[in-house]
């Protein structure tokens, strides 16, 4: 029994006693169940398993602390109306905002942050991390940290472009279909049905095999695949708005379709559309990352998170976690966006289950 193991259990049991004493029921349950689980894990995995739990708990505490501080920061700098909303945000949403914020910084200031260029060969292949190479080098001797930073710009930028395009196409078609109705509405509905009935990855692969892997084509294909979702939502939301009296009044005034869409319907259906934008971004981002991982998305030497996983995948069999870093970055950003979307949906629907 090392001091670490003794200290570990003493801390846990002491903390659960304190929690029980101060009537913190859920905290006590959490700590005590962790103690019980630790017994089992300690017997099976020994001290390393307990280290794992400690590091995990430390990371979660760090994330929670960062989110808390970041939320307070946002509350302080935001105008009073927004600050009131932000104060009620759960920690997960604050965490999501923090990750998105960090990623945006990396995207905008990539040239300043990254120590080396994205395609610059600076050392031997698979060089281990040292003070110059924060995360080591990849299969060609390029700095992984720099590529990660540039990858934020390329991967996320591409996903944003595709999402925006999907949104413009889907939302415009949906709004137009809701206002016009009739044949156009029916035809668009059937087309959306057909596109949605093919799995998105398969559809993307089919189209890429035909048109080749070119960035502009990739964006257009992904946008086409995901626009039916936006179309359906916009159609449904706008369908509820179109039957309102003020739309009727505007029509009687003799306003054109484009005016109706822009001035009357769109301002009244933004809330669900913004949440949908976040969700849609997650899907698009995962699809593009998946395609890049398969070697069919963003092409080398452009730094990109999906292809970085693929290029360094062989390292995993030597117990090196390098390929997990870009993959983890993809997961982290998607989780972050999902957390924020979850909060926004909760807020806009007013669901209290």
């Amino acid at each position: 029994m090392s001091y670490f193991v003794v200290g570990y259990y003493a801390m846990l049991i002491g903390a659960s006693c304190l929690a029980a004493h101060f009537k913190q029921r859920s905290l006590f349950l959490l700590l005590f169940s962790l103690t019980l689980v630790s017994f089992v894990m300690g017997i099976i995995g020994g001290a390393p398993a307990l280290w794992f739990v400690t590091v995990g708990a430390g990371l979660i505490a760090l994330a929670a602390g960062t989110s808390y501080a970041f939320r307070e920061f946002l509350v302080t700098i935001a105008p009073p109306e927004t600050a009131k909303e932000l104060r009620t945000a759960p920690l997960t949403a604050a965490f999501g905002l923090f990750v998105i914020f960090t990623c945006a910084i990396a995207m905008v200031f990539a040239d300043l942050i990254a120590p080396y260029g994205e395609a610059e060969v600076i050392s031997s292949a698979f060089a281990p991390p040292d003070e110059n190479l924060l995360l080591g080098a990849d299969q060609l001797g390029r700095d992984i940290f720099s590529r990660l930073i540039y990858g934020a710009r390329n991967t996320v930028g591409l996903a944003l472009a595709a999402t925006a395009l999907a949104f413009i196409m889907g939302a415009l078609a949906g709004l137009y279909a809701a206002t016009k109705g009739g044949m156009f509405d029916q035809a668009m509905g059937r087309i959306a049905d057909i596109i949605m009935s093919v799995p998105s990855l398969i559809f993307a692969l089919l189209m890429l095999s035909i048109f080749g892997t070119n960035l502009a084509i990739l964006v257009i294909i992904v946008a086409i695949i995901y626009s039916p979702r936006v179309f359906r939502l916009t159609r449904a939301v706008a369908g509820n708005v179109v039957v309102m009296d003020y739309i009727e009044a505007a029509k009687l005034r003799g306003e054109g379709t484009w005016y109706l869409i822009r001035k009357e319907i769109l301002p009244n259906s933004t809330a669900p559309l913004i949440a949908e934008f976040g969700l849609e971004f997650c899907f698009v981002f995962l699809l593009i990352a998946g395609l890049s991982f398969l070697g069919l998305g963003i092409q080398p030497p452009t730094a990109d998170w999906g292809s970085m996983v693929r290029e360094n995948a062989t390292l995993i069999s030597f117990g090196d976690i390098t390929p997990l870093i870009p993959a983890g970055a993809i997961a982290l950003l998607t989780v972050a966006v999902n957390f924020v979307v979850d909060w926004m949906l909760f807020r806009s629907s007013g669901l209290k289950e």
Partner: protein
Amino acid sequence: MSPVIIIVLKRLGLGLLTLFAISILIFFAVEMLPGDIAQAVLGQGATEENLAALREKLGLDQPAPVRYLQWLSGALVGDFGTSLVSGERVSEAISGRFTNTLFLAAYAAVIAVPVAIILGIIVALLRETLFDRVSNILALTAISSPEFFLGYILILVFAVNMGAFPAIARLSGDLSFLELLHRTFLPALTMVLVVVAHMMRMTRAAIINLLASPYIEMARLKGAPPWKVIVHHALPNAWAPIINVVALNLAYLVTGVVLVEVVFVYPGIGQLLVDAVSKRDFPIVQACCLIFAATFILLNLAADVGAILTNPRLRHPK
């Protein structure tokens, strides 16, 4: 005829129609190629004679609708033509691999479905507690992680560090069934993680929706024990959403399998599709896409039909 049968038949008809539309889409997508298939395969530097010979071999001299009908009638009996790259029959390349993919998906489904439904019900009963919140965060994380991230983590932990399972799911020679399960455990587990998270969230939502309805409140108020409320009152109505959830997620498994197969170098149809796309081997791409799309549509169809058949309001019309 009872109204249920009519509704089911209508739904089946719609499914067939969609399938037909998809086959048109898949076939004519290749027609959209700048130039034609022969040009795309041989590249810019091809001589006129070579192009003409390949066009002759592929039957490109016939109009597209005729070729579509030939392709479709072939596809219906499992004949997808020959591969452009290896010259092998597409059906031979696919048949063994398709069984492998189905095996992997079934393996994952057998583990995932019961686990997800039980977890979903537990989480729904414990809603608004710490357990519910933690599991919600974990499920969101699993859904948001790309399949290859989960796959490589599992490889690192179970194959490299613990050495318990092989990292590469190579199926060679005669394997006993147990050995097969052991070798394909990690790819199956990767898919289980993603699908369980999805299914759990959906089951939770369905059950919570149900528990909020007045007749459940009534059962509670009249003093029925909690397990009886769940088993006798809630469950009969919950089957429809649960069957729907299961079928939708099985459909999801079919797509997720592509990335997982590449991570674990599993000899399935997804890997074949990815290879064929990078080599621009159109007959194989078309065949794989048709198979994936058909499976996806059939499972969605099963979800709808299952929901119709388990709907008590439709089964016992007034």
